[in-house]
């Protein structure tokens, strides 16, 4: 080893090249690579060793670059993700990832690749266990890990299931094909730029000072003196400085969250001050150093406290702390219960769930004359634009949102985070300003899944038909409204499950507390409701002696049925088909478990089932998308695609849809990715709406362009288009026309531009929730087989089999990825995830599933076409997660007899439930 060089100079090699630089010896290797060498392929998800996103090879061994001091790398050999591809070509491992769709958002991918590289160097043909052991230190929140395992198996030469097909060269074959992600290669080489990966070199840094208290008043001391005493601090912004309105929030009439708190905070983690200056100077400070005098108030923690007599009012005008109520009523409930041959009632409780995307919020803002530009990770560029305009008090046209690659969202990046702070600072200072949340900040300050307290009562007649269903759910919306109204409205509409019910009364409340704001999280309250309605289905089936799957089959919504909102659904109702598909596996697993349980008493196996339905798009509200498809003089198509891809694949499937609609090969499609200046509003990436809504817009845009092209040649609708470079050939029967696109005039670079807009038809709900809340629904059933340790109460999922009615699968590989990833999150919800403000604000106390926690997943795609959707497609993003937890809980009950009423089903809770059931020694 070399002796340390003077002035902290260190010498080492990176990807085969030698480097010498000066770095503070305790600077993290991850920071040296990213900030000093520009190697931003190495990602930072936690700075604490918990996520593995920063994994690099150090002398051939995988290490977390965030835990290695610069002083220890003198003389070392470092390999990062940038060192894998050779001469621009993916190496065998990267290519396998690409073929298998093993990268979704791509933020974990560099770490996965590096860990796999270490393994493959030692063991050329590792088996699954070896792969899981070697990669177990890298977390992925998107994929559910299965496709990553497949890719590494494949790279080692072991045949793995279904891989992508090469990009379809002919026209018309893109929809339904397993084409690899259009934006996939950059995610594998480290070239992709996420929120933290780039900013103008002269950017100042912003750091938020946040409340350590859940409920308090505060007064600020002499900030000017503080700034003066701390060189490197340029400015300290307070609530007073916000140029427009110091408020934001999802709903136009509910902008109840301040950008910076004004003397009063309602949750731990609320931003109080924005410090702007030099990065190192800001990092050297502790929040407690700031002159803030706190007057701590008793916090309202949980909905029971917030609803108690005499509880303080958290928001003016909401005297009972109820933000909003949701209500759906249909039929005669009393008569329904009177017909009961079986009746059940139960209470269920779920906790806060953290999105735990591996990419913490990050980005920068800069002022460009009278406009502001925000470059940050997000799920919703157009809503961000409007919100930033509101905060700055400028027209929305004066705001440009350029989303970076987004390293997972799952609903958590639908609310603003860094944007209003950055916008305020950059606007006022007229300097670029950047910010990266650290992990505890991300976890403490951004939204969560709503904790729920739910009561259900349900009844069925002797034939097993549901006669009455009652649901009452209280959802803890935390300190601010965020998406609380969406949850309160969506839940009652879904609360019965995908069943035909004789009568129903479903009520929900979103309640303000002093807890972390709850917002959107994959399913908007429906996963919590599903835990309750599926437990009720199991109860009724068991009471009536009807098989649990068959009971659901009896009650499954079918074409022509009316929902409890009175909506008659005629088309694309694949619930029964999902159950039929799973039935043979269900019976087989039951038989297997009986045999296993006859031989074992310390471990018992069980199987459970969960069903769900999910309305695609906003609840009874307009949510249009517009897409444009242009043809360039060089014969390339350009899709102006405002449907931001957060890993789910909208930059791939929109191209597939548009290509087939216009009738040209998908590999001719280039894209302009979401950018509020360059693409039309395609709404938010949420509510499982992009494939259905924006996909339809893409289809219409393709058809519009096609019509324009056919008009040029006076050709009929069946004419065949072909492009050979700039020469367009239109063949209509015997009639062949050739056009040289270079000779045609262009508008903004396009020879022709097709446009499509789609807004799914819905109607408002009346005071009893009757109407057409959604234009279409996705349906699904999943079965879970688990093994329970009868003494310890630990639960091991052994298998999940999933059947999803997706209408039409535009790209089966991406659909499978969504299902697997949703299931992994469902496993987390069921078995381990519980966010507790102030206590689990990191990724070692807050547990999400690792490689070893996600079992084999069998998938069946049901294609009961939705006539409104593009090529029959509807959504999959959220449906994937909803049935998993109910299936697992049902399986635990099947194995042990114990009903779990509180998730996560941590070992101590399962053991306690078993003891109460008298089932364990």
């Amino acid at each position, binding site marked *: 080893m070399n002796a340390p060089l003077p002035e902290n100079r260190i010498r080492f090699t990176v990807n085969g090249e030698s480097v010498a630089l000066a770095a503070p010896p305790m600077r993290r290797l991850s920071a040296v690579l990213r900030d000093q060498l520009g190697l931003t392929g190495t990602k930072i998800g936690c700075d604490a060793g918990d996520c593995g996103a920063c994994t690099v090879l150090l002398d051939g061994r*995988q290490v977390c670059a965030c835990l290695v001091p610069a002083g220890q790398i003198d003389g070392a050999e470092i390999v990062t993700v940038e060192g894998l591809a050779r001469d621009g070509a993916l190496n065998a491992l990267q290519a396998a990832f690409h073929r298998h769709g093993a990268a979704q958002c791509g933020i974990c991918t560099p770490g996965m690749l590096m860990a796999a590289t270490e393994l493959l160097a030692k063991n050329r043909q590792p088996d699954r266990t070896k792969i*899981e052991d070697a990669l177990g230190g*890298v977390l992925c929140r998107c994929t559910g890990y299965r496709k990553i395992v497949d890719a590494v198996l494949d790279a080692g030469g072991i045949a793995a299931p279904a891989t992508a097909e090469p990009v379809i060269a002919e026209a018309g074959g893109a929809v339904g094909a397993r084409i690899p992600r259009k934006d996939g290669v950059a995610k594998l080489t480290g070239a992709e730029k996420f929120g933290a990966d780039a900013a103008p070199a002269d950017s100042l840094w912003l750091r938020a000072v946040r409340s350590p208290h859940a409920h308090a008043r505060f007064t600020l001391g002499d900030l000017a003196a503080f700034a003066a005493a701390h060189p490197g601090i340029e400015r300290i912004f307070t609530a007073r400085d916000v140029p427009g309105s110091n408020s934001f929030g999802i709903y136009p009439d509910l902008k109840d969250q301040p950008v910076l708190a004004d003397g009063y905070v309602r949750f731990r983690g609320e931003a109080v001050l924005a410090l702007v200056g030099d990065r190192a100077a800001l990092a050297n400070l502790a929040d407690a150093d700031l002159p803030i005098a706190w007057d701590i108030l008793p916090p309202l923690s949980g909905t029971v406290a917030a609803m108690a007599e005499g509880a303080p009012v958290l928001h003016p005008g909401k005297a009972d702390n109820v933000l909003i109520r949701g209500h759906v009523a249909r039929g005669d409930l009393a008569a329904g219960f009177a017909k009961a041959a079986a009746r059940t009632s139960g209470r269920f409780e779920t906790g806060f769930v953290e999105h735990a995307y591996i990419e913490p919020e990050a980005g920068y803002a800069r002022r460009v004359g009278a406009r502001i530009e925000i470059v940050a990770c997000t799920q919703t560029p157009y809503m961000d634009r409007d919100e930033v305009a509101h905060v700055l008090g400028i027209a929305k046209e004066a705001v440009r949102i350029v989303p970076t690659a987004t390293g997972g969202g799952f609903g958590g990046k639908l609310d603003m985070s860094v944007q209003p702070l950055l916008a305020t600072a950059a606007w006022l200072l007229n300097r670029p300003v950047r910010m990266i949340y650290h992990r505890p900040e991300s976890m403490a300050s951004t939204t969560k899944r709503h904790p729920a307290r739910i009561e259900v009562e349900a009844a069925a007649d002797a034939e097993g038909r549901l006669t009455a269903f009652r649901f009452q759910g209280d959802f803890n919306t935390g300190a601010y409204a965020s998406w609380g109204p969406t949850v309160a409205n969506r839940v009652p509409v879904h609360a019965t499950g995908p069943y035909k019910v004789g009568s129903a009364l479903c009520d929900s409340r979103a309640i303000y507390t002093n807890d972390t704001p709850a917002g959107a999280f994959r399913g908007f309250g429906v996963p919590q409701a599903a835990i309750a309605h599926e437990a009720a289905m199991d109860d009724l089936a068991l009471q009536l002696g009807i098989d649990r799957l068959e009971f659901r089959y009896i009650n499954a919504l079918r074409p022509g049925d009316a929902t409890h909102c009175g909506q008659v659904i005629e088309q694309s109702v694949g619930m029964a088909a999902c159950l039929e598909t799973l039935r043979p596996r269900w019976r087989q697993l039951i038989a297997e478990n009986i045999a296993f349980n006859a031989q074992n008493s310390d471990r018992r196996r069980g199987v459970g089932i969960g069903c769900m339905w999910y309305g695609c798009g906003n609840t009874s509200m307009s949510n249009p998308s517009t897409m444009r498809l242009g043809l360039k003089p060089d014969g390339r198509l350009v899709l102006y695609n405002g449907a931001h891809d957060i890993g789910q694949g909208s930059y791939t499937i929109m191209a597939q849809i548009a290509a087939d609609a216009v009738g040209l090969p998908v590999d001719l499609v280039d894209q302009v990715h979401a950018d509020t200046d360059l693409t039309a509003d395609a709404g938010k990436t949420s509510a499982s709406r992009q494939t259905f809504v924006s996909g339809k817009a893409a289809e219409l845009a393709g058809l519009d362009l096609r019509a324009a092209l056919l008009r040029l040649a006076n050709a009929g609708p069946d004419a065949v288009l072909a492009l050979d470079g700039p020469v367009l050939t239109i063949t209509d029967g015997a009639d062949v026309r050739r056009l040289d696109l270079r000779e045609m005039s262009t508008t903004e670079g396009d020879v022709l531009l097709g446009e499509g807009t789609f807004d799914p038809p819905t109607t408002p709900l009346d005071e009893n929730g009757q109407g057409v809340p959604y234009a279409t629904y996705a349906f699904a059933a999943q079965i879970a087989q688990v093994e329970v340790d009868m003494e310890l109460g630990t639960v091991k999922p052994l298998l999940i089999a999933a059947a999803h009615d997706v209408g039409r699968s535009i790209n089966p590989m991406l659909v499978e990825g969504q299902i697997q990833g949703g299931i992994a999150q469902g496993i987390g919800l069921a078995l381990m995830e519980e966010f507790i403000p102030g206590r689990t604000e*990191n990724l070692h106390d807050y547990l999400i599933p690792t490689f*070893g926690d996600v079992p084999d997943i069998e998938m069946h795609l049901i294609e009961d076409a939705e006539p409104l959707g593009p090529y029959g497609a509807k959504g999959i993003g959220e449906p994937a997660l909803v049935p998993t937890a109910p299936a697992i809980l049902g399986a635990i009950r099947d194995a042990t007899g114990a009903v779990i009423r509180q998730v996560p089903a941590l070992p101590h809770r399962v053991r306690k439930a078993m003891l109460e059931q008298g089932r364990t020694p």
Partner: protein
Amino acid sequence: MSEGRYLRPQRLDEAVDALKGGGWNLVAGGTDHYPARVVEQRPEDILDLTGLTDLRGIGEFPDHFRIGALTRWTDLIEAPLPGWFDGLKQAAREVGGVQIQNRGTIAGNLCNASPAADGVPALLSLDASVELASAGGVRILPLADFILGNRKTARRPHELMTAILTPKPARPARARFLKLGARRYLVISIVMVAGLLEVEEGRVAGARLAVGSCSAGAQRLPALEAALTGQPADAGLAMLATPEHLAGLSPIDDIRADAGYRRDAALILVRRCLADLGGLR
């Protein structure tokens, strides 16, 4: 990050000499150091031990093994060692993920003294001692006397740990480590149990069991160890363990489990460990 002093000596005498001055924070693999500094990064004086390359590696001596303080978990996993190290190796494989095993040192695990440190019960069952060096010389302490509580050790500010010493068992011995957590990889233990049995002529000639995550520091179970001695070494040993044997533990409620569960689970794991060890041939 603004700088404090940083020293990465190549020789032990330089290191202990520097420590005389006091005020240093020690760093080895950094896997406990950095996670404690995510939010605030204050200047501090760092003595980086990783230049002391002589302290890395495992050596065999007539009556003991010497595990150098800078030995990493992966070094231990890959080292050819007698069967009584199986428990420690099992613990090593459960420390974090491979990245953590590739960097984290065994001494760091002990000096950090987390109640959930996986190395501690396994090393207690090996009857380990630790070697501490300072400018004044070297002292050796039994591990049980070194760990005083939650993140409290008997290390004096001017000392560093140089090695962990484990005596060779007098008789054929077998060892096991069982860890219970709420997920498969990268998990902090709810409870862990390490056990070592020395067996002679089919009977337990010596037993050492330790339970972690159930008190401020992992604890041996002397009453149970005494009860096991002389018993036939078979799977029936499990049933000799009683709740009273675990009475000395003082588990707490936390986010991972409640105290009552921890106590129950500890007994279950102790029994499983004994069933395993007794059943081995």
